[in-house]
């Protein structure tokens, strides 16, 4: 069963590899979808596996993006092999700090706290103009990888694809490990887990940190891919909401649900808004219908039927 499923993904992987033949715009959109996919997957470590809804996840996405951006702006470091590790380190550091505050709480209180802290950093980034460029954001001119300048969208797309697969693989292993299973046990019954001698706070903090780490990776890749970041784009509560929406669309009960959601979101948004239709209306109705009719999301529903069938 498990092996058969993996074979089913092979055509999808092939499609991802040949995407650049579809033109630069498709490549660009797919690149964005992959980056958001990493971010949504990381969010789902909290939402799906730990049962905590973060509405401030853009904080770590933005932390990754701004770590890379600030290194470029102030130190003129443009090498991906330095930027990415620094972004990861910064996101992990921030996630541990914020996690220490947040994981003491659950449910709506956790959600509110994540909004509060992410808004604090949003406001600071906005106001500390000499350092962060304020509302103007940071423009990124060029990216190097081992001394070689990244020359095209297509080339960078493959770096994103590689990052995506590595992240996917790592998250899969982490969530299938005893650690991941313990998280789910805590999610399902905190009391039972506590009786089993599990240190709930430690596990939640670890989940929070893992989640922040991958969101940071996504943020850094996003900044370098787009070439421009600003607080409203990478740190705002609207961006956090989009990650939640992607996860919800694809299905938080499924491992690959968030990725499906990010692709759906990115492509639908591009198609609908360029057709000059009411994108927000469609988006809103989509979320409302998913919540009411298919709460487990697209992949959740498919996997459920699959199992029954």
């Amino acid at each position, binding site marked *: 069963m498990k092996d058969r499923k993996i074979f089913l993904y092979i055509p999808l992987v092939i499609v991802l590899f040949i995407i650049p033949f579809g*033109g*630069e*715009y498709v490549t*660009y959109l797919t690149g*964005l979808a992959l980056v958001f996919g990493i971010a949504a997957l990381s969010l789902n470590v909290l939402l799906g596996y730990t049962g905590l809804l973060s509405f401030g996840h853009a904080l770590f996405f933005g932390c990754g993006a701004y770590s890379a951006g600030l290194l470029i702006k102030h130190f003129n470091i443009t090498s991906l092999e330095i930027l990415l590790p620094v972004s990861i380190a910064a996101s992990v550091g921030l996630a541990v700090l914020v996690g220490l505050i947040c994981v003491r709480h659950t449910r709506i209180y956790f959600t509110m706290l994540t909004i509060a802290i992410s808004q604090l950093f949003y406001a600071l980034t*906005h*106001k500390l*103009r000499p350092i962060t460029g*304020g*509302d*103007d*954001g940071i*423009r990124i*001119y*060029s*990216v190097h990888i081992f001394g070689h*300048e*990244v*020359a*095209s*969208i297509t080339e*960078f797309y493959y770096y994103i694809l590689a990052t995506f697969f590595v992240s996917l693989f790592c998250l899969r292993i982490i969530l299938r490990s005893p650690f991941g299973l313990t998280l789910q046990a805590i999610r399902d019954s905190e009391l039972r887990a506590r009786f089993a001698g599990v240190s709930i706070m430690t596990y939640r903090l670890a989940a929070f940190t893992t989640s922040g780490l991958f969101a940071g990776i996504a943020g850094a890749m996003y900044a370098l891919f*787009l*070439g*421009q*970041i*600003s*607080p*409203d*784009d*990478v740190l*705002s509560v609207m961006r956090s909401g989009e990650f939640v929406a992607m996860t919800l669309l694809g299905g938080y009960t499924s491992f690959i649900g968030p990725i499906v959601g990010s692709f759906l979101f990115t492509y639908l948004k*591009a198609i609908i*808004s*360029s057709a*000059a239709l009411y994108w927000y209306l469609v988006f809103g109705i989509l979320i409302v219908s998913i919540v009411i009719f298919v709460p487990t999301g697209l992949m959740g529903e498919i996997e459920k039927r699959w199992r029954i069938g």
Partner: protein
Amino acid sequence: MKIGDGMYKPTRRDFLKLLGVGAAWALLGCAQPQKPVATPKPTPTPTPTPPKDLKIGIISFRAGPAAAFGVPAHNTLDYLAEQVNAAGGIAGAKVKVIHEDQGLSPSDTVEKAKKLCLQDKVDVVTGIPGTNHSLAVAPVCDENNTFFLQCQARAEYGTWKDPEDPSKGVFDWVFHTANSTTSHAVQAAYMVKELFPETKVIAQIHQDYAYGYDNYNYFTAAIKKLMPEAELLDPLYPKIFSPDYTPYVSELVDAKPDFIFTSLWGTDFTRFVDQLIPYKLLKGTGGNTILEGYWDFYPAIGRDIPVYGHPQPFNQGSIEYEEYRNILTWYKKKYGNLEMGAVADIISAFYTFKAAVEKAYDEKGAFPTRDEIRDAMENLGKVPTPYGEGIMRKEDHRVLWTVECGVLVEDTKGYGLPYLYKPKIKLEPSKHEPPAFMKGTDWIAKW
């Protein structure tokens, strides 16, 4: 991420594109059989590029707080394209306008610009108010060999490859057709000096992004040169597109300045004035961009403020020109209100492009390639528009204008449009625009 400039490397995709274009032409040909066939197309020149559509993509705000500045830009471009198409197009090519809504963050705008360049393959990207948005989009268009005609953003360094380092030169494909931030600030400074010489205390309020900070720096530098005895209060920097100016208004009420210089634009500006008017503070004071608001709004100001500052709508021309007046009258009739600044901005970009295509066409005797249009634009010299002529400065790709500024009153000539009232000041480009590759502060320091 820079692809070799100007070097044309045919790729498999280009080949497919050619096939696609060919197929599309064939289909079009089949689909329009009823057309009175006059198609034995004479092909005298060796490389006859058939006149295809010229695509202009405009990114500007269609909703939200800055819609007051963006919507008129969209509407005006549609109108100009319609007019030109009705008259046979630009050098025989029809103009097609593609609209994109501008997002609130520069990165959103970059996404839109990428879509226009990569997906729609437009010839020109224009619009884009907001210096920060404009700076972010410039490299995207340049990478894709697509014109970027900045007209709604102001920075004089908008065409530079690096805003911090003029020695790196300008982007090949980026042009700036409107007045600069320096021009705005310097005009305001001249107005304070010449029209309100008794001014002692000057307050400033700007949005907290590039355009706002630039305005503060340039205006402050200019006032220190022109009126060294005037006292300048600390500037206020509200967040851009923020709803509530009441705390800032109270700061100003407490400070009791003689003159308020502001670079707020769009709805931010009208809201600010809305909230300031009840305090009666504006009696005898003026502000820079006060005329960037709605036309609807002037009557409300008129009762309480006898004096206001340099008029954005007239930056690039005067309504003495009939053709310009016709556009404005049409706009006001159709949409009820009039943001003259946005209309004037789009006119400058559209006519610069039109002039360049026509010049290249005349020189070649056939429809020019995009590279040829680019060369023509660079060497354009005079730019004819409905409101008079601008001058293209080749070094830094900027169009310079002679401006008039002064106190605006309502309709004095029966045009149904606001009109410049005397006393007014007329400034040649050398008086209000910095030389190429120089920022406002550096230039003013040399006065």
